[in-house]
């Protein structure tokens, strides 16, 4: 779709000096031009130092197995020292959350919320998710162009969030808004907030609203929703305001944005590979295998960042203590040494779950099986209803180096 840009990117990626590579620039992801750059980094500088960027100096790790190495060595690669994004949170506006903690605090808080995605609870949620999905799909127009992001992806994931938090259903749009606030790049023209202070203020408003619900749940017997779990958890019931803000934002973004973008990116990918779409329509049993492949192909989180606690080595390259290390999931998931024909969507790929999109190690996505469940139901209901849904124009991507998202995608469902 972006052929001219892609050609420029390929030649630029080939000719640019390696020390001038800075993959933290959000335009690579908004323009979808990042791939040839990472292909070269994987080949020539798999552990790469960028001395100057908008976010200061940082190291890039771009190969699957080297990312795995960092993921499992959490004592060396800390989440607590500097957080999880190449961009630091401003010192006076920090919002701790359990993904920004190391053991033991991380472990204690994670265990408070992880039962919400226990296998039995997922089975309980399935009928509700299915009936909502059916309703959303049945309301879609036929033979006219509409925005898939607004009418399907956001609708479904917002309802899911409302259920996870047992949030007032008619007010659920607030959750999506706060999610967008939490991940926005404040320099993007279409961002809902335009400064870190503004973001902080909006998230404080979120915390104030949520604290009323939190207090109610605390005074009620424990229930199976995230707020009740936090309100009754021994390591979370007395959180300071900023930690409450941080953990809520983590759970809202984690429970929403990534799945939203996989719902959009999956349909786009199937349009890019129409043979795969035909394969799916001919054999609906492939959905189980296709869902993790979509999550790999889309890679909804672009990177995660760590900070070294000591001098260390990754793939033979020395990295000093206190360094910012960026693990580029978008690159590891396209690593030819880990995934066969990585730039293709192959819905019946072998071992489709061996991808980095959920991360690995102690910070691995808590909701990974819930995300898969939502996507599986969506596609099961789509293939029963519709012929091939057509992408009608350019999918507009998010200006971000962290969330690999879509703002809009025009589609049409033929009669």
């Amino acid at each position: 779709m972006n052929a001219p840009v892609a050609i420029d990117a390929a030649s630029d990626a080939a000719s640019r000096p390696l020390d001038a590579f800075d993959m933290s620039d959000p335009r690579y992801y908004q323009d979808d031009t990042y791939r040839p750059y990472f292909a070269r980094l994987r080949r020539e500088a798999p552990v790469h130092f960028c001395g100057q960027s908008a976010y200061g100096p940082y190291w890039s790790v771009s190969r699957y197995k080297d990312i795995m190495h960092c993921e499992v060595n959490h004592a060396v690669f800390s989440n607590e020292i500097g957080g999880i994004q190449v961009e630091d949170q401003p010192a006076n506006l920090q919002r701790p959350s359990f993904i920004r903690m190391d053991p033991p605090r991380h472990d204690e808080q994670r265990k408070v919320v992880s039962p919400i995605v226990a296998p039995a609870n997922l089975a309980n949620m399935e009928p509700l998710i299915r009936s909502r999905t059916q309703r959303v799909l049945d309301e879609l127009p036929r033979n006219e162009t509409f925005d898939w992001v607004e009418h399907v992806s956001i609708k479904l994931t917002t309802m899911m969030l409302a259920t996870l938090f047992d949030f007032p259903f008619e007010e659920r749009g607030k959750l999506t808004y706060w999610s967008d606030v939490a991940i926005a790049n404040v320099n993007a023209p279409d961002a809902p907030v335009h400064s870190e202070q503004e973001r902080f203020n909006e998230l404080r408003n979120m915390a104030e609203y949520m604290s009323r619900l939190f207090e109610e749940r605390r005074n009620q017997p424990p229930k199976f929703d995230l707020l009740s779990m936090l309100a009754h958890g021994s390591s979370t019931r007395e959180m300071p305001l900023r930690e409450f803000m941080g953990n809520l934002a983590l759970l809202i973004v984690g429970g929403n944005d990534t799945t939203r973008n996989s719902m959009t990116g999956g349909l786009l990918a199937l349009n890019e590979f129409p043979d795969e779409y035909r394969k799916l329509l001919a054999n609906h049993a492939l959905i189980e295998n296709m869902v993790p492949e979509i999550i790999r192909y889309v890679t909804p989180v672009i990177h995660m960042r760590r900070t070294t606690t000591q001098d260390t080595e990754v793939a033979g390259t020395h990295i000093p203590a206190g360094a910012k290390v960026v693990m580029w999931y978008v690159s590891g998931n396209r690593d030819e040494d880990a995934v066969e024909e990585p730039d293709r969507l192959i819905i019946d790929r072998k071992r489709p779950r061996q991808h980095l999109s959920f991360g690995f190690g102690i910070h691995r996505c808590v909701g990974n099986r819930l995300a898969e469940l939502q996507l599986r139901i969506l596609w099961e209901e789509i293939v029963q209803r519709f012929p091939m849904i057509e992408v009608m124009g350019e999918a507009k991507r998010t200006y971000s180096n962290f969330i690999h998202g879509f703002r809009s995608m025009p589609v049409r469902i033929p009669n």
Partner: protein
Amino acid sequence: MPKVTYIEFNGTPHTVDVPVGLSVMRGAVDNNVPGIDADCGGECACATCHVYIEPDWLDRIGLPVPGSQEASMLSFAAVAQPNSRLSCQISMTEALDGLVVKLPEGQH
């Protein structure tokens, strides 16, 4: 060749040969035993090859070392029990011939 029996959550048993030196996880995956996902491929990094060791075998196999990566990964699984192990961390030996493991309701 030593054998391992995997019992699915619904009770269905699968007895397969697992070569010495291979992990109990690999034995399941290579023989398409349902219920072992093994997302990370054996790096002890995802906890989706979770099994319950039958009591008779627990002495020989042992529990994860407290504070180890395996122990912390297991501690996040809502369905973990005192006899839980990650099957990628159990290497097959002749002494484990006849091992029986049960699979949890789901891997996550």
